[in-house]
């Protein structure tokens, strides 16, 4: 158990492992997006109430789901960094903040585009949408704090880790917002308990898209953490050897 933990804390081991996995995960990502989007946009039938605008679900739900799941990963990385001062956890925290911000931004934008033909408005200050906006602001806050404190990396990583942990309060609020408050946003389509409130012909392509989005998250995380390792440790012996080997 400890050797496993130790290995995951080693930038050198992660750099090599991620480098070997990246091409495969990237190809799997492209395949799943291709199948999911092709099926969902062109083959799946139209929703009888919302018309074709419902097809936005095939990007909206995956990015929203993964932006929330990514927050857990980021909060765990933050806790590990605070407790064990693990460098790799800090790199994961920084990478997860930027990727999470991008995904949350997309969830908000695609939601707004979906809202226009469905509700007749781009934006409402309702519980689900506002709490997602707060999520975006927390992610962006962490990204900007790292930038602002670039010359004091120790302090930056500690402040960002604390902000990430405090921000965890927002996550259950997002999940429960559609049940707790009267909301324009429709309740969750997929639940762990019970069948999805969606016909299989529409649901299967959505599953492909969600898997694609998770795989994409994995690809991006491996890529960005590798980049962080390069930026911070380029002068270490093992990376200098890799650079020398590239000639």
């Amino acid at each position, binding site marked *: 158990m400890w050797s496993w933990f130790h290995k995951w804390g080693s930038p050198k081991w992660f750099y090599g492992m991620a480098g070997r996995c990246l091409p495969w995960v990237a190809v799997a990502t492209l395949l799943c997006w291709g199948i999911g989007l092709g099926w969902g*946009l*062109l083959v799946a039938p139209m929703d009888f109430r919302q*018309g074709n605008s419902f097809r*936005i679900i095939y*990007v909206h739900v995956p990015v929203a789901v993964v932006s929330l799941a990514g927050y857990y990963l980021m909060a765990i990385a933050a806790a590990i960094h605070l407790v064990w001062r693990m460098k790799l956890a800090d790199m994961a925290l920084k990478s997860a903040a930027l990727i999470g911000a991008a995904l949350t931004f997309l969830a908000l934008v695609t939601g707004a*585009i979906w809202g226009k033909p469905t509700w007749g408005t781009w934006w409402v200050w309702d519980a689900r949408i506002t709490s997602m906006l707060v999520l975006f602001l927390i992610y962006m806050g962490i990204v900007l704090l790292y930038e602002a404190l670039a010359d004091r990396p120790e302090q930056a990583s500690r402040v960002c880790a604390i902000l990430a942990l405090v921000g965890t309060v927002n996550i259950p609020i997002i999940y429960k917002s559609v049940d707790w408050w009267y909301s324009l946003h429709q309740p969750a389509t997929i639940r762990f308990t019970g069948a999805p409130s969606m016909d299989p012909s529409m649901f299967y392509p959505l599953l492909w898209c969600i898997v694609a989005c998770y795989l*994409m998250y994995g690809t991006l995380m491996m890529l960005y953490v590798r*980049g962080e390792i390069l930026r911070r440790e380029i002068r270490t012996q093992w990376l200098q050897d890799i650079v020398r080997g590239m000639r």
Partner: protein
Amino acid sequence: MYFDSWQQAWEMAGHGPYVWGAISICLLLFIWLPVRELIAQRQLLRREQRRQQLLSQQASMGNT
């Protein structure tokens, strides 16, 4: 295919701009995120290679 023609798939009975707009914004960001990072990493590695070359040149000049 659910639609009878590509034209219909493009228009989506009036919802085309919303659906294809949302998809294109996502795809743009999905492409931009890895590409900017790959470019940054490549630049960093190139810079480091040049630094190593310079150092080894200086070292060999110092020897002669």
